[in-house]
């Protein structure tokens, strides 16, 4: 993961150049090419004046793009710098992150996120102080400030609101505390910890081997804890001092984001240093991807239900890759448990978004046909005929064993309740619909959910690891399909399914001519989708007496594909730069302050047209970049 490939290094250099300018990218480039360096070597390699190298390093460290570590070497401290390329890649996610925060916390949140991204990390008190000043200033300058309000960014009205939103962002782990270890290279942190543990445990063990094992085991846990950070509800918060005057009221009004009203008033600890938590956002992006996949496979409404489900368990998931071997439980935050994150239908329906229209979204199996349901199926038929057909068949197929008894039991309940309270009956009906959708999701061959028992009308968990694999496979197949058409996909699936095969067998299974198979297989190997292994039949190696077995090596195929994508992204950015260079003078003119002030007057018609072309072209290129970025996330992060 942490290794840099040449193509990734190129991409990161281009990204840094795009965002932080040429000087920064030069330093990053040297660090990526040569590994960790001292400041002296950086100066030498970049051939920049020492002054600007130092300044640039400050910028890069502030933005977490460069990490540093001081060693004792020959009596004095020597500081080494290393580029954190994954963080450099994250520069690309800025748009996505701001957009995601906007969905959760509205304009205020988006503005905070944007500012945090710009600042790298910042102490809460400094951040608040800046706004304290800013709000005063804006009120003073209000009359002539209207020209600048081009952007729809609503001003943050008060420091109180700001605090509130920030606290919620901290709770949602969109912001995390920055610790000293975050500024150091991973390996150094690990070595330090190892040495410490060694010293601590050395006395208790007789043999070196045992000690090593123990140290390694503890190290793993500690590192994990360190990466995840403090996960308790009140992390980074402190008890609010006695509320002064009317502040409490204000708080209540603002706290629409908070689902559970707390008894004790907490406020954000102002000594905290915070930054954007990129890991958490990856979790959000993964959820969005899964929902999109569910929509493609099953249908719109089901994917909405899935979205709600994922949203509910999302607070318990801190990082994408963490939940693979061990899962964390909500109840005991500090201990790492092995319990799965489960959610029951009952809990889900409690907080289910009432906007989502579930009625008539699903067709019930004919076994329990009621006229009402039947009608809804018919009316919906035109809209999603395929989905409903599938649904119908599947549900029938599924209702066996434990689900069935439970369902019929639950059904009885509804029948009894029907004449009680229309509101309650409606709610129950809704719950039933939700359950139907959840069942659909669990039944799908992609296994969006896996069933975990019957408590609370059925409990479900999400197997992210398997889903990640599925998503990777889907994307891989899409690319193979694009390159080699259906033949390629067919061969890929056969080889995946059967393992190592020689050409003849493949052609037999695929029902294709051997020659045809051969050319496609060879090209696929060239692109890195397939691997070939030679097994000689006789001792003197001869080509015609050798078996050639084709096989699919997932990890390798993914890595090769990733590096291809990195290259494509680099080309994309370079293309944008070329397009910009072509119109350099025009763009410079449009950025001039006098032109900005009266744009209509100073720009000719053709210039405006050209500028429009440039804007739309850049937008298209950027969108393409984001699409590639999505692929990268699927292949690398999810």
């Amino acid at each position: 993961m942490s290794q840099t490939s040449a193509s990734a290094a190129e991409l990161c250099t281009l990204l840094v150049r795009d965002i932080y300018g040429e000087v920064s990218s030069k330093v990053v480039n040297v660090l990526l090419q040569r590994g960790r360096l001292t400041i002296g070597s950086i100066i030498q390699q970049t051939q920049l004046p020492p002054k600007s190298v130092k300044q640039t390093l400050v910028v890069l460290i502030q933005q977490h793009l460069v990490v540093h570590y001081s060693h004792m070497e020959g009596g004095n401290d020597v500081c080494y710098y290393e580029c954190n390329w994954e963080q450099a890649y994250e520069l690309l996610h800025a748009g996505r992150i701001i957009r995601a925060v906007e969905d959760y916390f509205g304009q205020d949140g988006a503005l905070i996120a944007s500012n945090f991204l710009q600042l790298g990390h910042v102490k809460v008190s400094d951040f608040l102080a800046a706004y304290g000043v800013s709000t005063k200033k804006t009120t003073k300058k209000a009359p002539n400030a209207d020209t600048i309000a081009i952007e729809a960014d609503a001003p943050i009205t008060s420091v109180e609101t700001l605090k509130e939103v920030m606290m919620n962002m901290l709770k949602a782990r969109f912001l995390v505390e920055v610790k000293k270890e975050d500024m150091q290279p991973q390996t150094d942190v690990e070595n330090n910890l190892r040495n410490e543990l060694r010293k601590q445990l050395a006395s208790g063990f007789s043999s070196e081997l045992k000690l090593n094992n123990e140290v390694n085991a503890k190290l793993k846990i500690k590192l994990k804890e360190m990466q995840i950070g403090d996960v308790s509800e009140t992390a980074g918060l402190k008890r609010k001092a006695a509320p002064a005057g009317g502040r409490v009221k204000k708080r209540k009004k603002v706290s629409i984001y908070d689902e559970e009203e707390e008894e004790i008033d907490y406020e954000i600890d102002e000594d905290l240093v915070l930054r954007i938590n990129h890991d958490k956002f990856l979790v959000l992006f993964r959820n969005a991807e899964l929902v999109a996949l569910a929509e493609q496979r099953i249908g719109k409404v089901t994917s909405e239900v899935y979205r709600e489900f994922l949203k509910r368990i999302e607070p318990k998931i801190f990082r994408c890759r963490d939940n693979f071997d061990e899962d964390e439980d909500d109840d005991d935050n500090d201990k790492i448990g092995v319990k799965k994150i489960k959610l029951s239908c009952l809990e889900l329906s409690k907080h289910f978004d009432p906007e989502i229209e579930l009625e008539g979204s699903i067709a019930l199996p004919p076994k329990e046909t009621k006229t009402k349901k039947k009608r809804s199926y018919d009316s919906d038929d035109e809209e999603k005929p395929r989905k409903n057909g599938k649904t119908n068949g599947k549900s029938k197929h599924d209702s066996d064993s434990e689900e069935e008894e439970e369902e019929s039991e639950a059904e009885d309940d509804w029948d009894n309740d029907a004449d009680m309270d229309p509101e309650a009956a409606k709610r129950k009906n809704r719950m039933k619909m939700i359950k139907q959708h959840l069942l659909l999701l669990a039944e799908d061959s992609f296994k969006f959910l896996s069933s975990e028992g019957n408590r609370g009308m059925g409990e479900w968990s999400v197997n992210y690891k398997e889903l990640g694999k599925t998503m990777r496979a889907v994307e891989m197949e899409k690319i193979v399909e694009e390159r080699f058409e259906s033949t390629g996909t067919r061969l890929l699936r056969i080889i995946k399914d059967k393992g190592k095969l020689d050409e003849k067998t493949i052609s037999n299974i695929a029902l294709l001519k051997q020659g045809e198979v051969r050319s496609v297989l060879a090209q696929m190997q060239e692109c890195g989708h397939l691997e070939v292994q030679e097994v000689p039949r006789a001792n003197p190696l001869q080509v015609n007496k050798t078996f050639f077995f084709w096989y699919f090596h997932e990890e390798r195929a993914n890595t090769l594909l990733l590096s291809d994508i990195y290259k494509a992204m680099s080309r994309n950015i370079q293309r944008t730069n070329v397009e910009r260079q072509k119109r350099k003078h025009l763009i410079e003119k449009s950025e001039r302050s006098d032109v900005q002030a009266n744009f209509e007057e100073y720009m000719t018609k053709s210039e405006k047209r050209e500028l429009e072309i440039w804007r739309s072209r850049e937008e298209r290129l950027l969108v393409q970049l984001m699409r590639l970025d999505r692929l990268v996330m699927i292949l690398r992060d999810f």
Partner: protein
Amino acid sequence: MSRGGRGGGFGGRGGRQNIPGVSQFGDDIKPDYSVTELFPPNPPPVQSSLTKEERAMVSRFRSHRDKIHTGPFYTVLAPRTKGTTEDPFNNISRYSEKYQRKPRKAPKLDSRPYVVNFFPEELHATLGVEKTEDGKIRKKTLVVTQLDELLDMVDEDGMEDKEDEKEDKEEEDKGVESEQDPDQLTDDDEGDYNAEQYFSGGDDMSDVGGDDDDAGFY
């Protein structure tokens, strides 16, 4: 993406076991010796239309990038030589240059507070950490303009001016390049008569040396 895929497929791969031109797949396949088209027609894929969500995302990204570009951390390399070899038509000083957005050649570091502990010791001087008499680190407030675009440019300039005065005292350890005072004449305006410009250019060059020589020391 797969330009020349078919043509190069057999020749280019697997330099280990097969002689170029001879197929490794056995005798039943005749290698294709005919001349392949150098650039076979390869229609480029067309991008599917942008969704609303994507547009929103890109517009956030762009505005974010613009904010950084106008912020204190975006830096460009100073043009090395401004000699006669460059375009004589476009590279002349113009009146309108005074309206142009001037990119920074060095980041403006003292515009904000830092968490000093997070930086290595050797960079502390660069951070512009000032210590007051009693040894405490003097606090700085975040410059508002980099957070909010609500304030107008006039205000920003005003604030920078105030800061510049502060900076003047510590001018010695600050580079010449870090000053971006809008009122002062810049290098571009001074043209050929600025001897220092050439001098500092030469200063840069002194570091250059041969790459090999430098590598020898480290």
